[in-house]
């Protein structure tokens, strides 16, 4: 089963090193890939484990169900914004306005819902639409006038912050009361529902993987060894099960986590398996080549910025729902830098064309864990800043070092 099908059209290149069959072959293949730096997200995950271990040693409540649930709730907003940033980074661009947009969108939602008495759903949609409109505006402006995204979104960072102050006007903070809006971050599902969701995900995933395998086999294309597919699945599904097990021990599966997870999953499918996603990667890899291939580069850019700002708006709304309020400083401070850092730490390249939606999740977990753990240890401000900086540096360095073998082997 693991040997390439005999029907295949092309003889296997003799230079291609193939893993030997059996578990031993798999292990050797793993070691080989390790030495060549082809590890994907493994270094980040190991880094995360180290961070968790250290905090656990320092304070054993760090790994308690309640704290891990808190951690999840703490990262959803930043993670959602970060997922949008991942999209923009795939193009090789940057969005500096994400924080300001998240604040403004939440403010618009709060204004409509609380002060002008619109229903929860219209207010929510208006908030998201604000984000989308801003993103489209940024995208159109930068493609029409050929202004670098950095500058457009920097102007946005200032402008939308002003707009937020303006929208919130003299009252300043607006408290949210609507149960639907509050429920976004405050709802927890019971174990039965949680496990149902898990089962659904696992079944759909396994089914699609095997259907695809069957098709490739029928077409006579080379197959990835079955065992590596299985190992990979065991790990990811195991992580999912572990996470849900933790949640059900505390308050249950948080709706916010479900939303965040769903956004990341959808995004990953979008960029990895659709035409639009393929074109996005192409533009990020070589915009001129994409243009010559007849891809409407400008349209892709506008769409990506619209999506990213919508996601920023969603993040802002989640944050507001958790804080039960919107104020003038919503979305300011380190929201933006954290979101960008999360995407980068998770493994998305700043130079475009390389990355995945999972990096938003992984990076947000790393950054969220550091700040959660240090709050748990209640360190003083100056120490916290310094430790955060140091941990970030070390985490990124482990990741970079592990890729080093690859760089040495690579073209550049």
């Amino acid at each position, binding site marked *: 089963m693991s040997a390439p099908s005999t029907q295949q*059209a*092309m003889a296997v*290149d003799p*230079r*291609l090193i193939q893993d030997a069959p059996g578990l031993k072959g798999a292990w050797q293949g793993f070691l080989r890939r390790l030495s060549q730096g082809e590890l994907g997200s493994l270094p980040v995950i190991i880094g995360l484990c180290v961070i968790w271990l250290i905090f656990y040693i320092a304070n054993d409540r760090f790994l308690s169900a309640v704290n891990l649930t808190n951690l999840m709730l703490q990262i959803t907003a930043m993670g959602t914004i970060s997922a949008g940033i991942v999209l923009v980074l795939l193009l090789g661009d940057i969005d500096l306005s994400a924080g300001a947009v998240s604040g403004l969108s939440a403010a618009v939602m709060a204004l409509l819902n609380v002060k002008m008495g619109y229903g929860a759903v219209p207010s929510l949609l208006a908030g998201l639409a604000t984000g989308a409109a801003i993103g489209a505006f940024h995208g159109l402006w930068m493609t029409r006038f050929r202004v670098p995204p950095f500058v457009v979104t920097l102007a946005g960072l200032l402008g939308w912050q002003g707009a937020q102050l303006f929208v919130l006007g003299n009252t300043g903070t607006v408290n949210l009361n609507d149960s639907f809006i509050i429920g976004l971050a405050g709802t927890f599902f019971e174990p039965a529902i949680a496990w149902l969701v898990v089962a659904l995900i696992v079944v759909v995933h396994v089914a699609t993987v095997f259907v*695809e395998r069957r*098709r*490739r086999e029928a*077409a*006579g*294309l*080379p197959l990835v060894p079955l065992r590596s597919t299985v190992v990979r699945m065991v790990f990811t599904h195991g992580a999912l099960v572990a996470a849900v097990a933790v949640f059900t021990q505390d308050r249950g599966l948080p709706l916010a986590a479900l939303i965040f997870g769903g956004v990341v999953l959808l995004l990953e499918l979008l960029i990895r*398996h*659709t*035409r*639009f996603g*393929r*074109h996005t*990667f*192409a533009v*990020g*890899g*070589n915009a*001129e*080549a*994409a*243009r*010559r*291939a*007849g*891809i*409407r580069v400008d349209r892709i850019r506008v769409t990506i910025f619209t999506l990213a700002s919508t996601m920023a708006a969603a993040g802002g709304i989640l944050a507001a729902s958790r804080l039960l309020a919107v104020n003038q400083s919503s979305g300011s401070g380190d929201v933006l830098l954290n979101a960008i850092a999360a995407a980068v730490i998770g493994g998305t390249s700043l130079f475009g*064309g*390389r990355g995945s939606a999972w990096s938003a999740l992984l990076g947000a977990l790393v950054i969220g864990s550091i700040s959660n753990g240090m709050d748990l240890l209640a360190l003083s401000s100056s120490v916290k800043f310094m430790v955060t900086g140091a941990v970030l540096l070390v985490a990124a360095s482990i990741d970079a070092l592990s890729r080093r073998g690859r760089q040495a082997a*690579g*073209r550049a």
Partner: protein
Amino acid sequence: MSANALFALKGVSKRFGAVQALTKVDFEVKAGEVVALCGDNGAGKSTLIKIISGIIPIDEGDTLFEGRKVSLSGPKVASALGIATVYQDLALCDNLDVVGNLFLGREQRSSGAGKAVGWLDETVMEQQATALLQRLSVSIPSVRTQVAALSGGQRQSIAVARAMMGEPKMVLLDEPTAALGVAQTRQVLDLIRRLREQGLAVVVISHNLMDVFSVADRIIVMRLGKRVATFDVKEAKEVEVVSAITGAKKAEVTETLKMEGA
């Protein structure tokens, strides 16, 4: 002459900053004809190709496709007209794999519900890509390698194969065999002949006069941004072409060619 041309340029000029790259160039190619574009380095051949494929705008002059005036405002327009191009600088996406590059801009979508969202049918694409590359004798370790990891000739082969996807009416090849090995070069020349037989218009740029003489019907020579000569391959001699290219007297050229024959 250009009355029955598939594609024609009339008095096209192009300026880059302080350099007049093309000066009032006429150009025409018929269906079922292979035109070779020759000229010294910097003569303006690639610029001409880029104008035809719509990636650079013209300063003045007209473009005619099937006798109608068209405005080649972008690569999208050119490919809609059925013009496929292999660029000298290849223009591949280094971060995509071979399949991704071959199908870029014309990805196969899976049937059914997937079609609406643009879900990619990787299996079909991989199958087609494998078949096409085999036909062109391209030897790459796997169609799933990133293009960044390919050798110069392999990249060139991918670029040529790319132009064969879709169903073009006219193919522009800017030094398609420059980096190719013996077998691959032969395949590409064969391919060009097949394209002519299928009634396509082919424009090929090459510095290798042997190749040019073996596939072309007509040779157009450019020099310092101007079209200076046209030859019918059946009647042309290599010396004449070389002298048109270098701008040297015919006698001198014969001399040097003799010396090199040694």
